[in-house]
């Protein structure tokens, strides 16, 4: 097991290469510059292609093209850059392309600031692109998770033929921590996966030998499902319309219940719950330990997969025992807080404390906020 000291943005890049990523296109934007910079060096070493696009808009579309050609492809950006990619991400979903997108969030709205924040939770989990498209969204809270979740993202994307989003922030991008890197996937494994996708890859009709496909604007997932089955018997298995494609996406999103991952730390006897994700969740974890030392029975709920949201972790809280839930993020107003409140359905009081505009949340502030809600 290799244990190295690495920046988050670079760990994401290396984990992607190890997961089989062989194409990256991106555009410079702080704080995620180290991802393209790292891949500019690393991808050629593994026979991959790195391209700096003329814009985020061009970059996401290059990634789309590379994926259609059969390669594992990725891009990364920060907040406003991800906003520019919205159309391309939506079209990648519409074309059932297993691409991975990493967002190292910075302050917003607009250009906001280059400093870290968590102001794009809603963008990432609710409306990353037009047409109601949804992605599995993974939220690392440290460099190790950033690497592991990127590796996992490529597996989920390939499984579902749907883009996956890594929702990190500027802290994780710029912070160096020891990390154990996942193993390099072999060329044989990658070729096997590429062949499995043969009916929906486009290198000309010769790729599949039974007729042409069209990575579609109009029929989306229905076109892909029919192409996949067409190879077998040629008869469409689902109605070839966009509405039937929308149903297929809805069914896909249902299956994600099994992919939910949430850290529940010291919640067994908790009378209070702190909750947050990514860096916010990590700060809450530290605050839990300190409050425990002061004798308060506090636990942590930290969603790792933030879409689909782990609502059950909050629904199962015993309203007789838990006095309140405090949510903390680097965003004002709170964003994940909306999902927390929805999950609690007013059974348990919930409060919010956040910093934003590039200010990084601190344990002492969370503790003060906690104390202020004690009656």
């Amino acid at each position, binding site marked *: 097991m290799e244990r190295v000291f690495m920046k988050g943005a670079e760990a994401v890049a290396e984990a992607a290469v190890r997961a089989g990523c*062989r*194409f990256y*296109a991106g555009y410079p934007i702080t704080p995620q510059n180290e991802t393209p910079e790292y891949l500019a060096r690393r991808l050629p070493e593994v026979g991959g*292609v790195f*391209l700096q*696009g*003329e*814009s985020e*808009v*061009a*970059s996401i*579309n*290059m*990634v*789309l*093209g*590379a*994926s*259609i*050609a*059969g*390669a594992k*492809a990725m891009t990364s950006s920060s907040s406003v850059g991800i906003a520019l990619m919205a*159309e*391309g991400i939506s*079209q990648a979903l519409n*074309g059932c392309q297993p691409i991975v997108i990493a967002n190292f969030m910075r302050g917003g709205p607009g250009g906001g600031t280059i400093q870290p924040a968590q102001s794009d939770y809603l963008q990432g989990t609710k409306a990353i692109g037009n047409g109601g498209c949804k992605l599995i969204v993974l939220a690392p809270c440290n460099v190790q998770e950033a690497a592991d979740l990127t590796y996992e993202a490529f597996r989920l994307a390939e499984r579902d033929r749907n883009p996956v989003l890594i929702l990190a922030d500027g802290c994780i991008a710029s912070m160096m921590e020891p990390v154990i890197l996942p193993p390099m996937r072999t060329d044989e494994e990658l070729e096997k996966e590429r062949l499995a996708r043969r009916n929906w890859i*486009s*290198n*000309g*009709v*010769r*790729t599949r030998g039974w*007729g*042409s*496909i*069209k*990575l*579609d*604007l*109009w029929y989306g997932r229905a076109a892909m499902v029919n192409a996949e089955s067409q190879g077998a018997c040629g008869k469409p298995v689902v109605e070839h319309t966009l509405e039937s494609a929308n149903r297929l996406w809805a069914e896909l999103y249902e299956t994600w219940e099994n992919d939910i991952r949430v850290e529940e730390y010291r919640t067994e006897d908790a009378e209070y719950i702190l909750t947050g994700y990514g860096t916010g969740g990590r700060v809450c974890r530290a605050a839990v330990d300190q409050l425990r030392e002061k004798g308060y029975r506090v636990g942590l709920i930290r969603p790792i997969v933030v879409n689909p949201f782990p609502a059950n972790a909050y629904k199962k809280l015993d309203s007789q025992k838990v006095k309140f839930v405090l949510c903390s993020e680097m965003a004002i107003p709170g964003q994940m807080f909306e999902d927390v409140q929805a999950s609690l359905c007013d059974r348990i009081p919930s409060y919010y404390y956040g910093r934003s505009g590039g200010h990084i949340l601190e344990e002492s502030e969370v503790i003060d906020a906690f104390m202020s809600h004690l009656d």
Partner: protein
Amino acid sequence: MEKIYSRTKAVNQVSGGFCPGCFHGVIVKIIGEVTEEMGLIDKAVCVIGVGCCNNIYGYVKGKVDMVNTPHGRAPAVATGLKRMAPQDTLVYTYQGDGDCAAIGLSEIIYAANRGEKITVIFVNNSTYGMTGGQMAPTTLIGQKSTTTPKGRDADDVGYPMHMCELLNTLRAPVFITRVSCDTAPHILKAKEAIRKGFQNQIDGKGFSFIEIMSSCPTNWGLSPVDSVKFMQENTLKEFPIGTLRDN
């Protein structure tokens, strides 16, 4: 009797598709003929822009692979696709003037500037056909459109955009030419230009750009035959045909 002109196998006969007299139909035909003659049908991927060019779908459905792209992004998608597909894959974009010269101007200039080994087929009919005849970057001065009801006014919205000349300032492209569909001999020249554009790609020489002048009877409000006259008296004067670069 010997058959001296037959339908290309690369194109379906479609009852719907383009409007009567639209030269998109001719262009799709000659692309099909060249693809067939060069034996590239099963290696070709047509990266389609958004607009009337989208109607190519019915014509090559079942025969050639196609990729729909967001408006203006075809050259970027083609870039990723060409670089990651087997090198003998023929990747060409099929775009209109809105797609290539307006929203996708950045993408086409950078794909050209990088010298991507793709072939771009750009159909210039001086209008946004599919959306009902709005002003395009290539709409002529004084030419009416639904968004220039009194005719395009240069003081207000500038002059028609000359894509070949624009790309000719870049070093990487190997082939830049403007051809036209107004007459049968010109169509045959356009076909040769497409052949060269494909051959450049197969030989790995570099980026080829083929601007094909077309008409739009529906949105110009003229009959197909009168549209050709309008083209010859106006459009082709603003956009003279000829090859600007052929390395």
